[in-house]
């Protein structure tokens, strides 16, 4: 074991000498390397120097204690290059980094937990619990909640024709938006269009608008259909009246 340490110490001294003499003129570099190699060789050959451990420790200590002078000597040799010390420093850092990486690689990394196998089959599961019963009537009113009402506008239409007026076969009511009803926005929208030969409504235009109620009336009336085969010049005029249920109860439909 002491022999291994001694050889490692000699190798460290040789490595450091190669690093700090790197890039110097060949005569200076070779002379210094040979001188250190000779000194180290004599140290290992002397019989009165003690065991391999002792000799190796002395070599390492002599290297470490001489590092400042080694770097200073290098700078003296390379005074033309002010930062000539950096190649040695970079080499030292590289050696340290490699040694650190090697030491990190030796650290045992705990294995990751196994990844659970993905299961594609769908297993039957228990049926979901029934939804909770609806809440009881509030104590504030004391009565059951009022049913939800959808209210429509009441439409009146006339057809101007030179012959028999076609019968209406599809009526789409105009929805009275609840928010407008709640805001007490009422009124009459008048639309006018043409009944085509196929019975559809075309060229629909607004004759009398009524704010936001105009669009809902327009969307409903353009979906109306009449019996096909009539005169293409038949003119349809529709008046849609929007009123709240409490004012006119006959035009509401309860769902």
């Amino acid at each position, binding site marked *: 074991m002491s022999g291994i340490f001694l050889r490692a110490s000699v190798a460290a*001294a040789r490595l450091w*000498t190669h690093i700090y003499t790197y890039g110097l003129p060949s005569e200076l570099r070779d*002379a*210094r390397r*040979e*001188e*250190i*190699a*000779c*000194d180290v*060789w*004599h*140290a290992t*050959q002397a019989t009165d120097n003690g065991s391999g451990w002792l000799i190796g420790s*002395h070599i390492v*200590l*002599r*290297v*470490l*204690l*001489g*590092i*400042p*002078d*080694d*770097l*200073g*000597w290098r700078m003296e040799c390379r005074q033309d290059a002010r930062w000539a010390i950096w190649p040695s420093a970079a080499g030292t850092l590289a050696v340290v980094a490699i040694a650190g990486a090697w030491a990190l690689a030796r650290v045992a990394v705990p294995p990751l937990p196994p990844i659970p196998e993905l299961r594609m089959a769908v297993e039957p599961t228990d049926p979901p619990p029934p939804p909770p019963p609806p809440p009881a009537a509030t104590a504030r009113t004391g009565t059951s909640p009022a049913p939800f009402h959808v209210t429509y506008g009441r439409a009146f239409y006339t057809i101007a024709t030179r012959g028999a007026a076609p019968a209406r076969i599809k009526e789409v009511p105009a929805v009275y938006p609840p928010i407008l009803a709640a805001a007490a926005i009422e009124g009459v929208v008048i639309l006018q269009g043409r009944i085509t030969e196929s019975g559809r409504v075309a060229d629909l235009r607004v004759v009398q608008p009524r704010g936001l109620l105009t669009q809902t009336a327009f969307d409903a009336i353009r979906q109306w259909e009449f019996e096909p085969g009539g005169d293409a010049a038949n003119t349809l005029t529709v008046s849609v009246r929007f009123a709240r249920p409490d004012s006119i109860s006959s035009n509401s439909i309860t769902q």
Partner: protein
Amino acid sequence: MRRKPGALVPLEEAICSAAAGLCRRGSGEFHGYELAKQLAGDAERRLLTAYGTLYRALGRLEEMGLLQSRREDPEIAARENRPGRRLYTLTAAGQEAVRQSVRRAPQTTAARRRRREARA
């Protein structure tokens, strides 16, 4: 360490003294490891001078003309199956520096003794 012009730092003085000691023992030429052993023996310590410190100081002393060096014959190193040595020699200027160092040493020692006695 900031040095005065022409003055030697303690390590350089010690190296010159150790080199002079090796010369007195008959080793006119010596290599770095021999010198490091001699330095440690003079200072009565076991750990040798650091590589960088020792060889940088040897280079300075050579530039100052106190030491000379030459590369050993490669055939000798190859025959003995070892790395080649750089052999150092103490020059006349180096020997003079050692003599001056020895002359200064008693004065320095006396001054230290006086300071120690003054503190006591």
